[in-house]
């Protein structure tokens, strides 16, 4: 449904998006993760036809965005990070204007009513100028859905939401996904993306450094280093292994935190047994998903 082929965007000689290749199948809820300045918003602006790529191409439902912007915009719903509406109009009037711009006929009244109920803004008659950021964000989601899009693209959708708003947002995304709509969510908040997305891509310095399902990402990211915690009854000697990256001892060498490139628990157990040290516990730490993603970012930063 959403495809990027060698997508590049250069601003004043600096690549904001660099040779991005990405594919999001139909019906998938895909998270585009990355720190601030990674190129997420620029990618989204190209996908929504608001800016043109410097090179490469992106496609929505097999239509190239740069050459068919109007057709593409009819198929997608978009909510920018800094979502803005006309402050002197009500939520209903803002959606009405949006629906007219999509060329919707009389059916728009029913759709607006339905969406306002979905985002919890039904019966709100005050002008949008008096809305909180969270209310605007909710209205932004409603606007993104007004035209029954085949794909919706949300840029930092939970940035201004309170806990109730976040819960509502998750409910709405699940509801939309259940109807077969493809969803692309951009965020730098991993926990948010992980709760609604079935797969994700990680952007850093404009490049896609990893992508896949959560398990795939954790496995690939976690393969690089293993943390092993050891507790012994007697002090440990110095530990040697080609895979050993770092060893930190504590409590009179009764405890150690070992960082290795591979799981060397067996090797460590043998070494300690040979040294006559009784082991109380020997555990490999499962990589924390946040650490895994940070490692992706850091790896790219080091490479850069």
């Amino acid at each position: 449904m959403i495809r990027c082929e060698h997508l590049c965007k250069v601003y004043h000689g600096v690549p904001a998006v660099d040779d991005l290749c990405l594919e999001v199948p139909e019906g998938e809820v895909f998270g585009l993760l990355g720190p601030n300045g990674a190129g997420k918003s620029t990618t989204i602006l190209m996908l929504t036809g608001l800016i043109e790529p410097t090179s490469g191409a992106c496609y929505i439902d097999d239509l190239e965005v740069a050459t068919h912007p109007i057709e593409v915009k009819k198929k997608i719903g978009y909510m920018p990070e800094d979502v803005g509406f006309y402050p002197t109009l009500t939520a209903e009037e803002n959606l009405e204007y949006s629906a007219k711009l999509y060329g919707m006929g009389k059916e728009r009244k029913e759709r607006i009513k339905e969406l306002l109920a979905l985002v919890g803004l039904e019966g709100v008659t005050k002008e949008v100028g008096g809305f909180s950021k969270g209310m605007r964000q909710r209205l932004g989601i409603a606007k993104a859905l007004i035209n029954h899009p085949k794909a919706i693209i949300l840029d930092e959708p939970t940035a201004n939401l309170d806990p109730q708003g976040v819960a509502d947002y998750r409910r709405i995304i699940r509801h939309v996904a259940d109807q077969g709509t493809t969803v692309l969510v951009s965020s730098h908040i991993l926990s948010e993306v992980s709760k609604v997305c079935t797969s994700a891509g990680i952007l850093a310095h404009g490049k896609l450094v990893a992508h896949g399902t959560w398990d795939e990402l954790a496995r690939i990211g976690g393969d690089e280093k293993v943390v092993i915690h050891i507790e012994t009854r007697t002090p440990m000697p110095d530990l040697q292994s080609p895979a050993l990256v770092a060893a930190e001892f504590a409590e009179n060498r009764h405890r150690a935190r070992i960082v290795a490139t591979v799981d060397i628990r067996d090797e460590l157990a043998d070494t300690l047994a040979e040294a006559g040290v009784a082991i109380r516990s020997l555990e490999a730490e499962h990589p924390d998903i946040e650490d895994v993603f940070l490692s992706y970012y850091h790896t790219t930063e080091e490479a850069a």
Partner: protein
Amino acid sequence: MRTEGLRVIAAKEFRDHVRSRRFHILLAIFLIIAVVGLIDGSIQYNQQIEEYNENLAQVSDDEMMPSYFGWKPSILSAFFKMSMLITTVGVVLGCAMGFDLISREKESKSLKILLSHPIYRDEVINGKALGGIAAIALAMAIVLAISFAIILIFGIVPNLDESIRILLFGGLSFLLIFSYFAIALFMSTVAKDSSNALIYTLIIFIILSTLIPSFATNESVMEIVVGEHPEPPGMDKFSAVDIIAVSEPVGDQAEPSEVDLAWEEYGEKADAYWEKRNAFTDAVNLLSPSHNYQEMAMAVTNPQLAVAFQSNSFNDPYDEPPESGLAVLGDLMGELAKNILALFVIPAAFFGLAWIRFMREDIR
């Protein structure tokens, strides 16, 4: 293929303008001043028409030569006074309606949302301009309708000639307000926020309405551009006899004296100087929509006076007074063609610049 966007955006902009407090306040001020001016003008007109009728009776009795003092008064003179108001309040209305059209979208972050709809970018700026034009046209229509109503209340029924000229006056006023609306719209695309856009618009307004006309007639500027005024022949060079000779030539065969030749040469130089100077003043003034409007407004509301200015015969009381009405206006069109053209070209140029700037706007 175009989309529905243009119509939808224009309709929304028009609704926004006519619902805005800013528009209501400025239109109200505009109307109050126009109404007061027209009431005053109507009273004066009724007095003048009485005096004119009395004079006319005397003229026919005395067989006095017609003179400019015998011009028939016209209710259009009240509209000429209104043109002064339009160069201030009307212009402010135009600026106020355009200065934040694009910058407000940027500030409220709604531009990105707007452009994410299936519409072409030019439909946004064209729609905004159309909405503004429609609101300005509505304002002018209200002012003209109320003006007609007031003069009718005072028992003044404009004839066809006058009615057409009143409508032309409305059209000209619309063009002036639209000129400043287009300038403000351009500033709105250039400036980062509405306050800067307003400041830039006011600067341009001051330049076009005040600085350019004063620059065009400034003596120091004239000296640099067209040089010094030629000096008349020095009086000390000639004797009293020479001067008498100039004033009293002896016979048809008399050879022109040195004084004659000197004055003739001076006359030619002075004519060339004034021609150059007027050409420069006219050219610079063309850049000022306010000046072009005033020239045109005078031609439409008081064509006799405009002809007198154009032919420089105002001071000659024995010339035939120019005919009144559209015929005179038609004669003036040749002279004022450049002003009419400028009244169209300036808003078109600024709208073109706004269009280009908006089409190249970086959305991030």
